[in-house]
């Protein structure tokens, strides 16, 4: 089978379609990007840097990194484990497992935060016990990690499952007949074959973990300098009309998003064959 190559638009319809696609993408995507930068640097470089030098903002950056540093490895390990059992074995209930795995994609981030309040909040299932034992989950780091983990749970698994299904089990079975044991099979045969897809999944998972707003907002309690991540700090600053500071923080996250996009594009371009063919986000 041969697919049609792209060509320069020649007809009026071609020009029209191309122009309208570009115009629409400008209105919806490019202009908002431009707004972030112009607003952040409205007063020049000095106010921009001053805004970022705020202790609450620095604390927010640190917390954002910390939450991602805990959540992403958890979901990466889960992603590998679940992809291994789903793609390497036949068992009853696999479809159900896949459905549950996809749930976080369809549940509102706000609900992803709410459920942890219902479990661990003061009036939650385990709220009383937690209070008695002086353990804080909600309105503290553990709750924010849990909310982030729930929202970003499918990212790594969803990258690995289609790829590992495509690759099949032949190579691993061959390794077993050649005498390879347990982890040898995984580290010597599976991991080298999935490493770029794993990196891709981790990249998307990290971007989402650092940018998550709704779920974290619900469980954080918005304690400045303590439980504010960068996205929450942006909200607070914006609502207080500290526009430059808000957009300065936003520019950091935008930079992160652009780096993510560049890495993602490079990965897709360089290792197309080693990433899953069909991708769902």
């Amino acid at each position, binding site marked *: 089978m*041969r*697919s*049609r190559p*792209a060509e*320069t*638009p020649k007809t009026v*319809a*071609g020009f029209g*379609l*191309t122009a309208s696609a*570009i115009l*629409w993408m400008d*209105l919806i995507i490019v*202009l*908002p*990007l431009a707004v972030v930068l112009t607003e952040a640097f409205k007063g020049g470089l000095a106010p921009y840097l001053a805004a970022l030098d705020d202790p609450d903002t620095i604390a927010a950056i640190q917390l954002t990194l910390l939450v991602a540093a805990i959540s992403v490895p958890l979901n990466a390990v*889960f992603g590998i*484990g679940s992809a*291994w*059992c789903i793609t*390497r074995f036949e*068992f*009853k209930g696999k479809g159900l*497992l896949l459905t*549950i795995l996809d749930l976080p*994609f*369809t*549940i*509102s*981030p*706000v*609900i992803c935060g*709410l*459920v*942890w309040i*219902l*479990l661990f909040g003061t*009036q*939650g*299932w385990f709220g009383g016990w937690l209070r008695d034992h002086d353990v804080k989950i909600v309105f503290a780091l553990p709750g924010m990690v849990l909310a982030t*983990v*729930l929202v970003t749970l499918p990212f790594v698994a969803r990258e690995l499952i289609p790829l590992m299904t495509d690759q099949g089990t032949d190579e691993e*079975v061959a390794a077993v007949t050649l005498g390879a044991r347990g982890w040898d*099979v995984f580290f010597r045969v599976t991991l080298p074959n999935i490493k770029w897809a794993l990196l891709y999944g981790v990249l998307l998972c990290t971007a*989402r973990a650092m940018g998550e*707003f*709704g779920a974290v*907002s*619900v469980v954080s309690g918005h304690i400045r300098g303590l439980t504010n991540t*960068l*996205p929450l700090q*942006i909200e607070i600053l914006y609502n207080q009309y500290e526009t430059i500071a808000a957009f300065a923080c936003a520019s950091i*996250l*935008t930079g992160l*998003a*652009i780096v993510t996009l*560049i890495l993602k594009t490079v990965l897709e371009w360089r290792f197309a064959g080693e990433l899953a*063919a*069909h991708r769902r*986000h």
Partner: protein
Amino acid sequence: MTASSPPARAPVPTGFKPPRTNLHTTRVLPGFKSSLSLTITYLSLIVLIPLAALVARPWEHGLQGFLFVLTDSRVIASLKLTFGVAAAAAILNLFVGLVVAWVLTRYSFPGRRLLDALVDLPFALPTAVAGIALCTLYAPSGWIGALLAPLGIKIAYTPLGILVALVFVGLPFVVRSVQPVLAEFDAEVEEAAQTLGASPLQTAVRVIFPSLAPALLSGFSLALARAVGEYGSVIFIAGNMPYVSEITPLLIVIKLQEFDYAGAASVALIMLGLSFLVLIGLNAVQLWLSRQGGRS
């Protein structure tokens, strides 16, 4: 159950135990039990138990308490708004997404790769950033808002603002669903249509688009699901007026801030139930479409 004598068969050599599972494949590869228990434990702790808490909570004040929330006019207004605008955004994205995907696969022009990469920006850009950027852009004092204000069109702080945010959020779902199908569309099928006398427009509408229907629908479903639950990019631009521009996720947050856990859980459960119903319906259509595709 009676223990009947087994049918005559070859003597089983000592030391060989038939496999205990009723699944007939031997598990040659290692790690089935450990990876399955990891998966089940993790999903239970992170997804199932929390969701169970959500399902159990609304009944605190009995069925009446739940019905009270369900019939609250403010809740109903927010649900209408949320689902209505989400559907409108997804439909708009269906057309825009198709055009963008078409242009990206069919035409080469300077900046195509850049445009292609930018499609994914809404995935990568944190919703709060998108929210304040869109709000600034479409506010009456913003670059676009200022252009529209003399025409009497207000976008920010109205339901139209919510639409803009949800279009932003949903665009990549449609484009990325349709793009691979378009890219892999067999050129010979298209050429066959042309040799049979079809114009380019006829070829597109009669030959290509029908084969895109499943991908379009799946992109639509994903965009819709995402839009219904969206919070971060919407709350800045929405204006959040009760009955007018207050989305359901925000209502949940408000109830939570009032420590009305049961109320928040009730609204969340209703919203979740509705979105599952919609998605199941869309799935059924998808299944029907793929059967149609399989027949031809």
